[in-house]
């Protein structure tokens, strides 16, 4: 019998890490909101960019890692890789949703609309749909091995589609005789201070991702152990000669 209660308590090193990350997050927010320069055209609105772009980059990393862990699971078959894949997938979905909310918040005052078919925003919306599909499939399969395999396949196909989705969305409005103007606010050349603040925000977002991953993976291992224990108990209780139920 595993002692779930004991294993669910956060270990001290994780608490310290999360505490430091929280402080760094407050520092990053302060830099973004208070100590960075205003933009020449957008004024204070540019400050949304620090939260939006940093979270967007990490969301793509998270979804990519979901596919990588999935591939590792297909290759090695270790439950630990599946736990990592789910954790990264949850983070990817969460950060992608934050990106969309940030994007909508950004486009309303700057472009006077809640949604633009900007390539990056479209790509993120598609990525949210892909990750939702990933979790729906996971929810429908009970056998952990098959679930891990099938969801790994879904994650790999989804991640492989992202470059094509980006190209298609990029050309969606521009590869046409009447060009449209794409405003994503970050610009090609950025003030040095702004770039530094953006990179710091991205670093902190990465630390947050890592912190959530560590916590979620810990929980995932407990979940896996509990699941195994329950299935063993069910097998022992099942009468002989019962037919195998396929999922």
């Amino acid at each position: 019998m595993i002692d779930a209660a004991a294993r669910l308590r956060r270990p001290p090193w994780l608490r310290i890490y999360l505490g430091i990350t929280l402080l760094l997050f407050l520092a990053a927010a302060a830099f973004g909101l208070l100590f960075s320069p205003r933009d020449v055209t957008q004024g204070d609105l540019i400050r949304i960019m620090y939260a939006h772009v940093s979270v967007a980059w990490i969301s793509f990393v998270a979804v990519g890692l979901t596919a990588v862990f999935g591939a590792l699971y297909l290759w090695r078959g270790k439950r630990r890789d599946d736990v990592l894949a789910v954790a990264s997938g949850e983070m990817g979905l969460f950060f992608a949703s934050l990106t969309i909310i940030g994007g909508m918040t950004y486009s309303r005052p700057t472009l006077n609309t809640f949604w633009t078919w900007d390539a990056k925003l479209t790509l993120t919306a598609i990525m949210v749909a892909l990750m939702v599909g990933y979790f729906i499939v996971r929810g429908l399969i009970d056998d952990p091995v098959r679930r891990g395999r099938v969801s790994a396949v879904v994650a790999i196909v989804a991640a492989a589609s992202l470059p094509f989705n980006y190209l298609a969305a990029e050309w969606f409005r521009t590869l046409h005789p009447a060009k449209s103007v794409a405003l994503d606010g970050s610009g090609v050349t950025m003030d040095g201070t702004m770039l530094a603040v953006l990179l710091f925000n991205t670093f902190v977002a990465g630390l947050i991702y890592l912190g959530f991953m560590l916590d979620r993976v810990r929980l995932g291992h407990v979940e896996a152990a509990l699941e195994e224990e329950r299935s063993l108990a069910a097998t022992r209780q099942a009468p002989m000669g019962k037919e195998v139920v396929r999922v």
Partner: protein
Amino acid sequence: MNDLHAVLWIARKDLLQEARSKAVTVATVFFSAVTLGVLAFAFGENPLLMREGAMGALWVALAFAGVISAAQSWQADLEDGALEALLAWPVPRAAVYLGKLLANWGLMTALGFVLLPLAGGLYGADIGGGAATSAGAGGGGGETAPALVVAVLLGTIAAGTLGFALIAVFYAGLTANLRARESLLPVLMFPVVVPILLAAVRASNALVGSGDLDLAWAWLRLLVGFDLVYAVVCLVLFRFVVEA
């Protein structure tokens, strides 16, 4: 029997099954026709909008037809343990996938060729006329013969339906024995096929509207690139899809 024979045999089996039961043909032809009709009603107020939306409507109809076709081809095999017998056969899993893919692709391409004049007629788009306009006016791609434009259009349909078939057959195999498979298949499939839909519609619009071969070719490159990459990805991953 080598692998290529196995692929062709499986494709032939699926097509024969379809020829006898006509389940997929009936379902997809009528569903596509209904889709075109419904979209025509939705956008019918504005004739210009309808004409420009003709190819978009065509590809939406083809996308849904692809879902039906792929789902049906796997369901037919799940009955009476036919799929297990097929998987017990000592050929690579990829051969099973390729065979089903070829059969579905053939059916969808045929459907696309049938729907093209239908969409043109319903929506008031002159399929070969775009090229004639551009050739007559001396603009666009210069001298583009209408026959060439129509040929490239048919090629676009084949490339686009290949992309749909690749993803649809793959995901239909994955969801074949899951609950809620009918609603899950479009949910899984459509975000992945967005590039195909976009590229195919843009290429078709370029060809039908102005006979612009250069613009169409730009989109066709994306389409063909997608098809190639996904052919490899799906072939490699397929064996994890049908393992028990």
